[in-house]
């Protein structure tokens, strides 16, 4: 009976051979395929508990850090001490709901490259540093917090730039969210709640949403007019009650519904200070689409900005307005198809403040390693020249008048020369959006801002840029004044 026993033995051993063959497939030949399957949570889990670099502001305030687990020092939890005010910028990296913001954009730098594998050992022996890199941002944490609190839960955004370098001092979107709530086991439900919220707390309104810039766009039109010599601040324009759109029965009226000034004519300066639509509609047609588009592009419109994340592209619809004077007139007052992010409008204000030169906005000042040594430092770069220094100086004066005696009086700060321009954008589905762009101090600008409050904020239909957005800008200017002194 040894024959059958031998064959049974052979059978069982062949079975174990099959097992070995299958194990070879799953662990050797097909290993990569199963390891990198998107449904295999292991790589993400191992990343999620690894140490990541810190994100700090210019003054060293920590916005993101990895804290070792109490029971297992090899395992790290991510903390975001900056909370809601910084959430749209810093973002989050979550095992369950993915990543966003700088955490996503700089994941390659922030993540540890330590896998505790043999190849790591070799890398360490070769002197390579596998520890994660860290980021130093340009943000002024105090200004960021102030701006977020000034919005007080209203839907809106604030962008503050250093006009001389393009360094972003504040990038605020409201309402926001607490990124730490997206790290836990209930992250999927929490994210669902945030996505279902009509206030869209996950939307970065500062860079990823487009609004009609309304009268703040008059800064661009005026710059184009002065640069091209079509008009100067003293140029007289007729002052009708309503501007008849060419080839159309429709008219453009002023916000007040009356003429801009008392006489039959009005200067460009007065029209700018009082934000008269009738004058700027006519002026836009005189300046022409080509010149306005050129100025707009140099200020940041119609171009893809290099930014840590994909930002919305602000547009001046040149193709639409080139052969359509009526559309050009409407575009001249920042309506019709002109669209801008708060970031772009802050760049417009910064261009005026910086003698006409637009600086590329940047958020990350420096990438540094675990020893605190510089890996890469962002150098300020020029995006283009939006206007001549002379035009910038004239426009700067007009914008100061807006704050001292025009529509932007509520942005005024005693003892500080503030320049600005208000805007009130018609919204097809609700109360108007309130804008304010500006900079201070006029004699030597150190901060340029754009403030946007969506849908009238908390005052509804009566909202204007001057009543809703300008006071927020004033808070920012006050804060930056007190910081300087």
């Amino acid at each position: 009976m040894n024959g059958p026993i031998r064959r049974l033995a052979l059978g069982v051993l062949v079975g174990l051979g099959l097992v070995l063959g299958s194990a070879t497939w799953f662990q050797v030949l097909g290993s990569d395929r199963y390891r990198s399957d998107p449904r295999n949570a292991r790589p993400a889990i191992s990343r999620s508990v690894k140490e990541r670099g810190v994100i700090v502001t210019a003054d060293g305030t920590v916005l993101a850090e990895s804290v070792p687990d109490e029971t297992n020092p090899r395992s790290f939890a991510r903390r975001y001490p900056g909370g809601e005010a910084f959430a749209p910028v810093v973002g989050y990296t979550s095992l369950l709901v993915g990543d966003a913001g700088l955490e996503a954009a700089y994941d390659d730098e922030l993540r540890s490259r330590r896998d505790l594998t043999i190849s790591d050992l070799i890398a360490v022996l070769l002197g390579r540093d596998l520890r994660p890199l860290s980021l130093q941002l340009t943000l002024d944490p105090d200004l960021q917090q102030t701006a977020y609190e000034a919005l007080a839960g209203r839907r809106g955004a604030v962008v503050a730039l250093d006009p001389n370098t393009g360094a972003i001092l504040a990038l605020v979107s409201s309402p926001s969210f607490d990124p730490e709530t997206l790290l836990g086991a209930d992250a999927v439900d929490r994210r669902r709640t945030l996505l279902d919220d009509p206030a869209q707390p996950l939307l970065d309104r500062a860079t990823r949403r487009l609004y009609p810039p309304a009268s703040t766009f008059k800064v661009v039109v005026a710059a184009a007019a002065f640069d091209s010599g079509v008009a100067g601040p003293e140029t007289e324009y007729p002052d009708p009650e309503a501007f008849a759109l060419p080839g159309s029965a429709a008219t453009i009226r002023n916000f007040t519904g009356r003429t801009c000034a008392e006489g039959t004519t009005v200067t460009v300066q007065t029209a700018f200070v009082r934000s008269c639509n009738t004058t700027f509609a006519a002026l836009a047609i005189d300046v022409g689409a080509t010149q306005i588009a050129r100025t707009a592009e140099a200020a940041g419109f119609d171009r893809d900005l290099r930014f840590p994340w994909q930002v919305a592209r602000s547009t001046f619809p040149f193709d639409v307005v080139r052969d359509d004077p009526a559309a050009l007139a409407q575009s001249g007052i920042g309506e019709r198809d002109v669209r801008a992010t708060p970031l772009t409008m802050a760049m417009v204000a910064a261009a005026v403040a910086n003698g006409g030169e637009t600086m590329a906005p940047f958020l990350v000042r420096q990438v540094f390693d675990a020893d605190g040594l510089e890996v890469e430092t962002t150098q300020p770069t020029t995006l283009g020249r939006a206007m001549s220094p002379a035009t910038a100086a004239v426009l700067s004066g007009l914008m100061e008048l807006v704050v001292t005696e025009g529509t932007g009086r509520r942005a005024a700060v005693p003892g500080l020369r503030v320049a600005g321009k208000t805007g009130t954008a018609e919204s097809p589905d609700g109360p108007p959006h309130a804008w304010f762009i500006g900079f201070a101090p006029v004699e030597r600008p150190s901060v340029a801002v754009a403030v946007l409050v969506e849908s009238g904020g908390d005052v509804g239909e009566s909202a204007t840029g001057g009543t809703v957005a300008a006071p927020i800008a004033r808070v920012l200017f006050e804060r930056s004044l007190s910081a300087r002194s």
Partner: protein
Amino acid sequence: MTRLLEATLLVGAAAIAAFGVTLVNLATGTGVDAQVGLTFFVFLLAFGAVHVALRTFAPRSVPYLLPPAALLAALSFVEIYRISPFRAGLQRWWLLIAAAGAVLVLAVLHRTGTVLLRRYRFTLFGVTLLLLAAPLIPSDAPGPIRGLEANGSRLWVVADMGFIELHFQPGEVAKLAFVAFLAAYLADRISLTGTRRRLGRWSIPEPRQIFPLVAVWALSSLVLVSQRDLGAATLLFAVVVAMLYAATAERVFLWAGGVLAGGGAVSAYVLFAHVQRRVEAWLDPFADFEGTGYQIAQGVFALGSGSLAGAGPGLGRPDLIPNAITDFIFAAVGEELGFAGTVAVIASYAVVVAVGFGIALRARDRYRKLLAAGLTFAFGFQTFLILAGVLRILPLTGISLPFMSYGGSSLVGNFALVALLARISHEETA
């Protein structure tokens, strides 16, 4: 001399277990603690006791059975400890109890040898039936022993000792009693030179001789299918077929077994929804990743993530696999110890199987040959059945992996199995 080698390898296995526990501790940040020494001590005590019992009661037995078993227990213990330190603590107790069981088996058979089992074959058959039926005792029955249903199968017995409830899978021990009974029965009733009957071109043993056997198989399978433990039913059926074939050398049993198994598989698929789910999960675990396929998919991810060298003890995530310390302990080892670990595991099983069949080949008489072959086949086929399920060669049948799965019944059964094999090898004519 070879006994010394056995002792050395056993100390090595204990050291591997203790070293693995150390690595897990370092990886999870708890540092070197009492667990390391305790594990080393318990492995030494358990396998040392069996080793001493072999020296005392079966000195001529082969020394190659215990070391691979100890290696399997050590590798799996590291993973059980990594996934559930609490269960690992219980597993240490079970190792000691199972080793005591093996010592008891060797001691009881010391004077009479395996012939004792042959003498009590019908008692063993009765024990088999009792053990198999035990889980069917109602869960609310009065008295200390009750049945228990878990994971859709009813194969547990709870012994309420007043101060503690012991959970036990009697099927793991019934397997041994059944093989011992079959060996005795077949050695008595069916001989190679027995009366034959022609059936077409085959000559088969007299149906009268086989009939009781078919009844036994049908009865056992009935009990097991009623408990919905198809893994054990498949195993018992395979054991019956294999031992019939070994006893008669008639290939017709293999063919008939194949046909019966095929028919059984189809009817099980038609009759049981949970069998259908398992077949679907086997064919494409990713079709219902969040549902029926989740366990197999996680097992495959674990194996793939482990790759060649493994994540390292404590550095993978085998805890993501449902039932990682029982049915899927192999995948857990594959994830943290890599292909290196799984090859060591498969090689250890191959050694036990080869040595076991070797004992059967050299055994003194028909009974001992059948007993050794039956025990080895049961061990090897059970191993194949669960590994094939984890590695997607066959649909998954929930059955324990000898020496590796967490659980006392399985350890007790397989320690006794190895003790019996060793005893048979001791009884070889010198």
